[in-house]
């Protein structure tokens, strides 16, 4: 890239060739997915077009508009063709929001939190308990009867933020004065504790219904149903909910991205990065260490709490199995892969790891099963003899482990590292 082009890039001007290229790629991949709704590769190509959007030389406004078009228009439309895509996109969105939350704690403030999923669980159980008949078990009649109405969902979205942030502060208070590796182990233990509690708090008072989990959980209200009806787009709730959840997740992701962006350029974000780089120097410069660490813990936790509330409503059923140590490490692998402290990195990492787990591993599993059932022979070995316990879909840990080790050795800054420098000179980070 010539010096002139670099300068042009920094001013954020649009290259017409890039605009045409991105539009063409999005259009072609979208059309291809539409034509062949079952194809995994084509859907991956469509997802890659968003990455292209990030790299293309476009003005920030235009890039945002294109991203909005792709995520708000094209993807939901493809979702009506094949509902599975919408489900994948919603899951990706949930993990993007989680990764962005953990990114604040690990990426910006440099505190290794290995029990991040605990905050997610707090949010999820909060809505699951009050948004189902479960709450009748321990606080019947006095507060009216449960489940609460669908409208309460939005109240609990806010409550989830508050309660998770409070939990983060409570956990952080005793341990944030200590060295980083202690924090890692204590948060790891905390994650386990939350899971054990969720598993066992069905007695003496039945709070969580134990390993059986809670179901059915109230879904958010379809307040826009009549409006759609009036526009002539009436649809059954069953058809609306996947789209609805997709847009809710998208909304949360947008809010989280904006919040993170504002935070990291604020004095708070700069204090976090100072702590990450050198604690002693940060203290010497007057950064209130414990308060800033607590704040980062609370911020990260609050994102997870909000996503947890949404997750409970979306899944309709939750049990402690959704909140294991592996989930925490999965989210960690996402931000390590993308790049610690980088918003586009967290988005990319979350997308890549989720797609890998949901589509690629499962795809390999199905494919292997087909080969096994067909009795295909490879290199003189009949695949029908392959042990049945060999389920590629179950090797998420191996995937996470390989990602963590390889990234740490070869590219610790991640695939899309944080761009340093004054905010104005940085690339628009809203891809």
């Amino acid at each position, binding site marked *: 890239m010539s010096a002139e082009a670099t300068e042009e890039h920094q001013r954020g001007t649009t290259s017409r060739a890039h605009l045409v290229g991105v539009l063409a790629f999005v259009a072609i991949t979208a059309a291809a997915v539409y034509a062949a709704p079952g194809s995994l590769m084509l859907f991956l190509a469509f997802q890659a077009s968003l990455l292209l959007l990030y790299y293309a030389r476009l003005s920030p406004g235009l890039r945002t508009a294109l991203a909005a078009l792709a995520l708000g228009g094209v993807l939901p439309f493809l979702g009506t063709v094949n509902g599975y895509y919408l489900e994948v996109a919603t899951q990706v969105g949930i993990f993007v929001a989680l990764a962005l939350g953990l990114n604040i704690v690990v990426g910006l403030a440099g505190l290794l939190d290995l029990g991040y999923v605990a905050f997610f669980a707090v949010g999820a159980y909060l809505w699951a308990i009050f948004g189902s008949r479960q709450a009748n078990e321990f606080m019947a009649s006095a507060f009216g009867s449960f489940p609460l109405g669908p409208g309460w969902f939005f109240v609990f979205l806010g409550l989830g933020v508050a309660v998770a942030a409070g939990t983060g502060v409570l956990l952080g208070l005793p341990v944030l004065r200590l060295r980083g590796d202690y924090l890692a182990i204590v948060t790891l233990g905390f994650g386990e504790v939350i899971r*054990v509690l969720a598993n066992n708090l069905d007695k003496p008072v039945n709070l969580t219904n134990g390993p059986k989990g809670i179901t059915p959980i109230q879904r958010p209200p379809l307040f826009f149903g009549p409006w759609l009806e009036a526009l002539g787009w009436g649809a059954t709730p069953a058809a609306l909910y996947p789209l609805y959840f997709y847009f809710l997740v998208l909304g949360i992701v947008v809010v989280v991205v904006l919040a993170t962006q504002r935070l990291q350029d604020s004095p708070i974000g700069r204090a976090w990065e100072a702590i990450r780089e050198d604690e002693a120097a940060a203290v010497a410069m007057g950064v209130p260490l414990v308060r800033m660490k607590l704040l980062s813990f609370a911020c990260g936790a609050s994102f997870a709490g909000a996503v947890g509330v949404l997750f409970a409503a979306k899944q309709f059923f939750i049990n402690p199995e959704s909140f294991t140590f592996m989930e925490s490490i999965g989210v960690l692998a996402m931000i390590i892969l993308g790049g610690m402290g980088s918003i586009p990195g967290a988005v990319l990492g979350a997308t890549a790891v989720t797609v890998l787990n949901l589509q690629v591993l499962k795809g390999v599993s199905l494919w292997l099963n087909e080969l096994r059932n067909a009795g295909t022979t490879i290199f003189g070995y009949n695949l029908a003899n392959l042990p049945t316990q060999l389920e590629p879909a179950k090797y998420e840990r191996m995937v996470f482990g390989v990602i963590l080790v390889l990234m740490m*050795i070869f590219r610790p800054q991640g695939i899309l590292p944080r761009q340093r420098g004054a905010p104005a000179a940085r690339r628009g980070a809203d891809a």
Partner: protein
Amino acid sequence: MLLALKAWGHLGTLPVFLLLALLLLCGMAAAGLLAVGVERVAYRPLRNAPRLVPLISAIGVSFFLQDAVRFAESLWRNAFYLTYPSLEALDRRLRLGGAADLPYKSLVVMAGAVGIMLGLTAFVNRSRVGKAIRAVAEDRPTASLMGIDVNRIIAVTFFVGGAMGGAAGVLFGIQYSLINPYTGFIPGLKAFTAAVLGGIGNLPGAMVGGLVLGLLEAASASYLSLLTGGAFGAEYKDILAFSILIVILIFRPRGILGEVVAEKV
């Protein structure tokens, strides 16, 4: 260096049951060699990286190994939950008089643990290599100026750490019979708790910490349900261990025997 102790316990549980001592040695050697290999691949390139980097790499390795064992076991036996072969002699019980009796295998486990602890203490405190290990732990650049091959010593430390993990795995297998690739996770967490409880970087401290933690856990598993009228049972013992860790970290981060050693980074 502590990381060497992480989560390799399960590996030592793989070898076939031959003789107790041989089994223990095999488990220790296998786990120790594995630890050295892991150190070479996943830690040595990160020797001078910021502190979080090797920690994350360690988690990655432990996750990878768990599923690697699962993969191997699935291919080989089509099952990854394994039952330890039982030895009739070990399942017999020693009568202590009254209603009390004790299975022989628990005696074996206790004797094994004591023997290993004595051996480790002697190795670290008496041998030349042990002295070098302590020197490297104290001050790596100075140790290297004194002619100590730091890389080799760190590899030896990983071998010892891995071997201890392997020995613990074998003893665990003897005591509890049923193992799977993910068995080592909670014991690894508790090993850290015990080390912090006793005082990190302090061998007698780690033993005292382990003993105290173990006794507290066993007592809570038996009596918690009695004390709370059945409301909270043995399943809360992990929470107890973790609460102890937090309380210790708040009130006495140096641990029980922590005075002996200075804070190391």
